[in-house]
């Protein structure tokens, strides 16, 4: 019997699990991320592989240890497109027995990729499943983004987090389109009623950078949560929904981002590098107090963006903090830098 698993990515496991269960396989969530996950991943990864490779490999090993036998991985972008083959090779060399499915190589193959997981499913039913889970994903990201941008303003500590938890629980249980719309109406209503207070010094920081580092809180040491605790409003554009949407008219969108990054960039920098530059400039021009640029150590497209970001920071006189993560990055180190960044932003705002 197939027991499917997938890599961790924030709370998206609610969506991934839903999708796979709707397709008709048993699902085992990868065990929650811990230091051991990273250690396992590093032990069996090439040294210069980027840290998302190591985290996801660790997820797979831990899930395989617990009995999963079908790994579902995606791919695309910079090195990520090649993860699947090399991770599969490493895991098989370690002696694990499993099936490996790489999905989302492109929209054309999406239906056939998912169908190969459960060949008994007919295409129409599969299309309904995809539509339902896509809807759940876009709603998840909408609610998540709203919470993220307002959580630093909450009057009663924990009010947003409580709502978020119950929303996730209900989302996992929703199995119909109508249920999704009902849940959305309800949740957005509740969100409006949470009391918020915008402080006199309203610090706003944008987060840009590599997809995994931005979306997986364990890997960035719960940066957004820390910033909310410091009373900083956080905005980021990278979500699974935006990534999927970008796949449509990709070239056109990249040209638009290059245009937005003028005159610092004239060409697409690869993967999300262009967007990191474009969105940083956009937010700075909108009056944001600072930008945090997240990436794994060695991430080529984001290193590409750094020359332009250095220039932008210098010209616009807005601090851009570059955080680079590998397995040896200390949590305290990041915490210290964040505190220093916060202090600097406050000083500049109060000047």
């Amino acid at each position, binding site marked *: 019997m197939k027991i499917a698993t997938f890599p961790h990515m924030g709370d998206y496991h609610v969506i991934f699990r839903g999708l796979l269960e709707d397709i008709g396989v048993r699902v085992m969530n990868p065990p929650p991320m811990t230091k051991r996950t990273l250690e396992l991943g590093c032990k069996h990864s*090439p*040294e*210069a*592989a*980027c840290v998302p*490779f190591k985290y996801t490999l660790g997820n797979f090993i831990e899930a395989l240890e617990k009995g999963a036998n079908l790994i579902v991985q995606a*791919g695309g972008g*910079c*090195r990520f*497109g*090649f*993860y*699947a*083959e*090399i991770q599969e*090779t*490493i895991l098989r*060399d370690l002696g694990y027995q499993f099936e490996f499915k*790489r999905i989302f190589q492109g929209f054309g193959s999406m239906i056939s990729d998912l169908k190969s997981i459960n060949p008994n499913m007919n295409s129409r039913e599969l299309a309904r499943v995809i539509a339902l889970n896509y809807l759940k994903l876009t709603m998840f990201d909408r609610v998540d983004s709203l919470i993220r941008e307002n959580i630093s303003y909450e009057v009663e500590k924990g009010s947003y987090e409580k709502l978020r938890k119950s929303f996730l629980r209900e989302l996992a249980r929703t199995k119909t389109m109508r249920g999704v719309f009902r849940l959305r109406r309800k949740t957005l209503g509740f969100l409006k009623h949470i009391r918020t207070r915008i402080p006199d010094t309203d610090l706003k920081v944008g987060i840009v950078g590599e997809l995994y580092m931005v979306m997986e809180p364990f890997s960035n040491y719960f940066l957004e949560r820390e910033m909310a605790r410091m009373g900083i409003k956080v905005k980021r554009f990278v979500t699974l929904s935006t990534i999927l949407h970008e796949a449509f008219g990709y070239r056109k969108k990249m040209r638009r981002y290059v245009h937005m990054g003028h005159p*610092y*960039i*004239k*060409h*697409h*920098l*690869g*993967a999300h*590098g262009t967007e990191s530059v474009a969105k940083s400039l956009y937010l700075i021009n909108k009056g944001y107090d600072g930008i945090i640029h997240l990436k794994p*150590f*060695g*991430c*080529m*497209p984001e*290193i*590409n*963006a*750094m*020359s*332009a970001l*250095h*220039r932008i920071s210098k010209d616009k006189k807005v601090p851009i903090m570059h955080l*680079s993560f590998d397995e040896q990055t200390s949590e305290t180190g990041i915490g210290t830098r964040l505190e220093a960044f916060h202090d600097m932003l406050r000083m500049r705002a109060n000047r």
Partner: protein
Amino acid sequence: MQSIGVPRALFYYKYFPFINEFFAALGCEVIVSPKTNKAIIDNGLRLAVDESCLSLKLFLGHVNELVGQVDYLYVPMMESVVNDEALCTRFMALPDIVRNTFEGVRIIEPEIVDNNFLDLVRGETAFITRNVIKKKSAFKRAVAAQRFALEQFLDATGYFEILGIIDNNRSTREDKSCDINIALLGHAYNVYDAFIGEIVANKLRAMNVGIKTLEMLPTEDAHAAALLLSRDMYWTYNKEIIGAARLYIDRGIDGIIFLTTFPCGPDALSLELAIRTLKNQVPILNLVFDELESDTGLDTRLETFVDMISLQREARTA
């Protein structure tokens, strides 16, 4: 006459005959930076983002040599040279990195996607002439020059003489009298750089080891052979490297040295796959160059590797 600066790094090693002929045919003076030296290394390390691979740091060191000495810098944006494949994404950002690192440089930056170099005959070269017919004719000559240079290299040393890398006397052809022959495989901008591959090649020659490189094979063959090792790999240069490994093993090479710089992203993954697949078939050494120059360390590793190959052969014949 306009002077065009070409940094002796990255795309130079793959495309110089083409670049040189194109701009010379249009009446420009082509100026190349010198072979990698201490000043270039130091400047590169200073100018580049710290996490960049050594190859890119050297590139910026070479650009620095040319800034202020030439009218224009030739720094193309290269995305892919084979359909549905890609180069390392750093090749895409070279013009923008140069733009943001150096003040007031003028850059010729054609966009090369899916091996289409024709952007060169458009706006990027309008400052030389607006006559597209003239530029297309120069383009054709340049393509022919490149092809000729590659053919030259396959049985002699022509290509790399043009690049000024080796003397006319020395040959990187396999010396039939060498007892041990090793394939030195890696990106051309590493294997033929004075600071990286040339040092290794000199040491191997001193040990009387014959050297074979990727460029001694038809690159289409090496590229095609990659499919025997990997189904998903999409980096063109990496496919050529691992395909060459496969082909040399089939031809009975005594050992393979993979040459890479730290922290090369595509190499990290593609060489991991190649080494896992091939290590039972031939002795393999993975040499990772970073900016720290440790001559003794390199000597030890190469001597040990060559000794091991000798010992294994003796054991087999015994």
